[in-house]
């Protein structure tokens, strides 16, 4: 607080493309400067808002670094600091926050120029940060606080759900917590309904964090707005989750496209995938069961020319699927229909996988359901355009281990690739959660609206997350210096400027209370009266 609006130094050089160099005053210690902090630059006509992206040391005379003065003498050290030796900051200005007409009328504007020479640079005040990120309201959700500040950084969720988004980070850096926060945000603000493919059963009901603390999840906080679907009834029962629906998928619901996507995981040959299309064309809906029942190529219906080896390869692969317990020859209820019913009512659906954390099951189910849901949304949207009725509610589908769906080989085939590219046309977007972003197709990555990334240290992962970002090299230095817990870099559509946040607390009683809207809280209180 005491450092608020502290003068740091002056602009000494720079360019719009590369950002500006700031020479630190002798009163500001270079050791207090942290990459990721916000500063304001008081230009002659405009005020600029930017982030520290690098810190370096300079000397006026090279001789000084060759024959360093005796800094053990405090007097000499004090004299030299800030005069002959000084710190420099690299700041990338990203917004103009006041000074011209546009900012007065429409708020902060992207920079199109840089501050003039020797403009004064100060630490951004709470007010400046609030001005840029807005305050919490019906559209904005408080996601965390900037470094060394108490101000709230708010995410514009209305903008957020309009495009596909990504949450990235190494394992154990807080992706799940962040995703939970985002889901809560969307629930709270009602900007979209969610369908979560919950591979590790963490979003619906409580789970334990790394310290072994119980952490509540969505169904417990927003019981009326969340439905938990499960593939594994037993696991859910053991964990005392109140489930709303047990998903069973009939063999007849599996289509050749679903198998094509599983080609790698099932170890199928190209020919085997070709054969699937032929078989389904011939057998119709019951193709899977019929193919499994075939004893050899001699039993193939006439006109189908499938090689013995290919058939064996295919049958082996299909048998893996057939063994999944939630696949039944005759499903009692249509899961897709049920999910859509809930979604239409504005209830968020979390699909728990229980013990089927195997990637085959995950890809199969996620792809199968999503394709159908997407098709229905597409119809709904087209009808809405034609008949001028209300379009379906925006839907956000959360997928984990996204690189399995969106890697360059399958991204063009899977529905997730399509959704990521088509963006909001059909009101369906993705929330991609992944620890290996370099595995995701670069086309998909570049289309993502907002990216939220925790610490990543693999060079390739960092590069792929930052594709299509203008000041890539600067963000790179920020990203690689994130702490491994509770810190994330947010950039893209939903925030006006890239920002490093300390994520909002999640897990304490108070934090739960903050999530629940005030009116609802009153309702609950009334219940106790």
């Amino acid at each position: 607080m005491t450092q608020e609006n502290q003068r740091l130094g002056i602009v000494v050089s720079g360019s719009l493309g590369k950002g500006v160099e700031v020479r630190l005053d002798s009163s500001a210690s270079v050791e207090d400067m942290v990459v990721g902090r916000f500063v304001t630059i008081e230009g002659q006509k405009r005020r600029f808002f930017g982030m520290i992206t690098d810190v370096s040391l300079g000397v006026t005379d090279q001789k000084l670094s060759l024959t360093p003065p005796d800094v053990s003498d405090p007097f000499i050290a004090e004299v030299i600091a800030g005069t002959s030796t000084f710190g420099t900051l690299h700041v990338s200005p990203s917004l103009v926050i006041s000074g011209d007409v546009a900012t007065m009328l429409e708020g902060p504007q992207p920079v199109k120029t840089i501050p003039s020479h020797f403009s004064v640079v100060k630490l951004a005040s709470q007010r400046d940060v609030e001005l840029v990120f807005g305050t919490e309201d019906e559209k904005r959700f408080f996601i965390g606080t900037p470094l060394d500040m108490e101000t709230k950084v708010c995410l514009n969720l209305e903008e957020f759900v309009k495009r596909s988004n990504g949450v990235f980070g190494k394992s154990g850096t807080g992706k799940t917590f962040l995703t939970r926060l985002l889901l809560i945000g969307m629930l709270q603000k009602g900007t979209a309904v969610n369908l979560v493919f919950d591979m590790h059963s963490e979003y619906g009901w409580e789970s334990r964090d790394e310290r072994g603390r119980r952490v509540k999840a969505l169904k417990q906080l927003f019981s009326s707005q969340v439905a938990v679907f499960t593939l594994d009834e037993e696991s859910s029962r053991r964990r005392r989750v109140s489930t709303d629906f047990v998903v069973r998928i009939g063999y007849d619901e599996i289509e050749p496209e679903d198998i094509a996507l599983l080609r790698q995981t099932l170890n199928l040959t190209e020919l085997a995938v070709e054969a699937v299309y032929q078989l389904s064309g011939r057998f119709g809906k019951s193709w899977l069961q019929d193919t499994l029942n075939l004893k050899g190529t001699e039993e193939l219906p006439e006109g189908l020319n499938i090689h013995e080896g290919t058939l064996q390869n295919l049958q082996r692969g299909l048998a893996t699927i057939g063994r999944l317990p939630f696949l039944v020859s005759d499903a009692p209820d249509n899961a897709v229909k049920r999910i859509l019913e809930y979604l239409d009512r504005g209830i968020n659906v979390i699909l728990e996988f229980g013990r089927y954390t195997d990637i085959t099951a995950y890809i199969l189910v996620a792809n199968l359901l999503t394709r159908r849901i997407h098709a229905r949304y597409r119809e709904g949207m087209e009808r809405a355009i034609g008949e001028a009725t209300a379009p379906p509610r925006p839907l956000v589908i959360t997928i984990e281990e996204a690189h399995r769906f969106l890697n360059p080989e399958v991204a063009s085939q899977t529905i997730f690739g399509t959704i990521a590219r088509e963006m909001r046309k059909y009101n369906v977007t993705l929330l991609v959660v992944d620890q290996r972003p370099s595995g995701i197709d670069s086309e998909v990555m570049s289309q993502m609206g907002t990216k939220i990334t925790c610490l990543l240290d693999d060079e390739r992962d960092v590069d792929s997350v930052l594709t299509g970002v203008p000041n890539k090299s600067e963000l790179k230095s920020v990203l690689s210096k994130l702490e491994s817990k509770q810190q994330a870099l947010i950039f893209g559509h939903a925030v006006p400027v890239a920002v490093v946040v300390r994520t909002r607390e999640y897990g304490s009683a108070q934090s739960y209370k903050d999530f629940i809207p005030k009116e609802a809280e009153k309702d609950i209180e009334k219940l106790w009266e």
Partner: protein
Amino acid sequence: MKTRDLPLELYGIVYNAATTSLEPGRRPIARGREEKTEEDIYRSSPQLLKLLKSEFEVVVVGHKLDDKLCHYLPPTPARIHSFVYQCPPEEVKEFSQSFDFLNIIINARLPVSTEELISACIRQMSQAYEDRHAFLVAAGKELAILLSGNLNQLKAILGRIRG
């Protein structure tokens, strides 16, 4: 030092002082072999006081015109026979609010060592301040900027003014 020559007052810094005989070329003779103290020399030959003169040289570093303090050279030199006064501490303090005069000293090619002069001057000025350390640091910083191309000179001065 300053002259009081209203409306123009000149400020200067003494850089040299010497006592010589009145007649140029005539050097003083050693005396006092029979005397007990130095005072006795003058007591026994009082004419000495008239035959010797003390001179000091001053480099002008600023002036005050109509109560406005300027840290650069005055429009006119001091008049002959202007009286010269020693500045009181308050005035030293007022004058040393700005270190612009240091540049004049550094660039004035004086017959004495610049480092010695500057450090002596700053040490003296610092006595007018309650917070001597702060003044010395501020002066040091100014010198560090002025002498950024001459590290050895800077080191020499800093070594003489610290403490």
